[in-house]
């Protein structure tokens, strides 16, 4: 009983804190984030298992976590609101070439982050070559190039 409660409690806390921290933390795996992830997983492991290192405790905790995950994915499927609450919504950062500064700032991003994604995804070199940029639910930035200003791609 207590093992299941621990699993439930820790899952909820971790999910809440991850949502509070914002999507940027998820996608941008810097050295700092890597260290953070390692420390969080270690602290979580202790809190999940307590002093009980038995196989049965591990089974209960794993079963609870997997069931929570399945339950929430079913809930997301049925309710658009729960889906939004848990995974967020995509945010348009550049629309028809227009840089939406307030959104970029609130998402803790900069023009440089968008340019970096444009270079990485499409080999674009200038901002005016971007038609749309979207901050996706997983924290990544998608770029849709402006067809009129984009050089033809080699390869693919």
């Amino acid at each position, binding site marked *: 009983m207590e093992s299941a409660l621990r699993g439930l409690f820790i899952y909820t806390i971790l999910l809440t*804190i991850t*949502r509070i921290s914002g999507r940027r933390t998820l996608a941008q795996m810097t050295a700092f984030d890597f260290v953070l992830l390692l420390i969080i997983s270690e602290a979580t492991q202790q809190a999940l298992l307590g002093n009980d290192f038995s196989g049965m405790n591990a089974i209960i905790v794993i079963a609870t976590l997997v069931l929570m995950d399945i339950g929430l994915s079913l809930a997301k499927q049925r309710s658009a609101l729960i889906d939004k609450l848990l995974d*967020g919504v995509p*945010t348009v950062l550049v*629309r*028809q070439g227009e840089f939406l500064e307030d959104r970029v700032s609130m998402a803790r991003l900069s023009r440089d982050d968008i340019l970096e994604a444009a270079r990485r995804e499409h080999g674009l070199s200038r901002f005016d070559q971007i038609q749309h940029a979207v901050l996706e639910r997983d924290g990544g930035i998608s770029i849709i190039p402006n067809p009129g200003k984009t050089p033809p791609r080699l390869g693919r």
Partner: protein
Amino acid sequence: MSDLQIQDDIRFQRKTWIVQRVGWILLCVVVVLAFLGFTGPSELTTAKITDANLKLEFPRFARQETDFAVKIELGPGSDRIEISNELLEKINIVEVAPFPRAQIATKEFTVLVFDRDAVSSVPIHFRLKPLRYGRLHGEIRLAGGEGRADLNPFVFF
């Protein structure tokens, strides 16, 4: 509308940003409370109860399955303390120093008998481990009830 087919919801996103910022403040509050000693044993939140014949020091906040220290000073002439069995059901006594020379179990209390010379000059130190979370309730008293104190830390999950 643009040619971008996307299920965005900027009103929801703006609310999310506000909630996130409130969440950051709450995380700060948690850390500040931890520094101030409200999330576990700390010097800043140690309860000090003084009775005529008994002094008891214990943390107001403890954590489940994590030891905390309790200090008891007995008045002159006292050599035994009684701990309510109700309390002993919720905690483990991990360590007692000086070690009692005898233990007597009664219906409601467990009596620890110490060497009188030892406890007249130095306090008795306990290390206790709470087994449950929530408010602990337990009585510690001198033999015969001439001095008594409640040991009631709040135990976090």
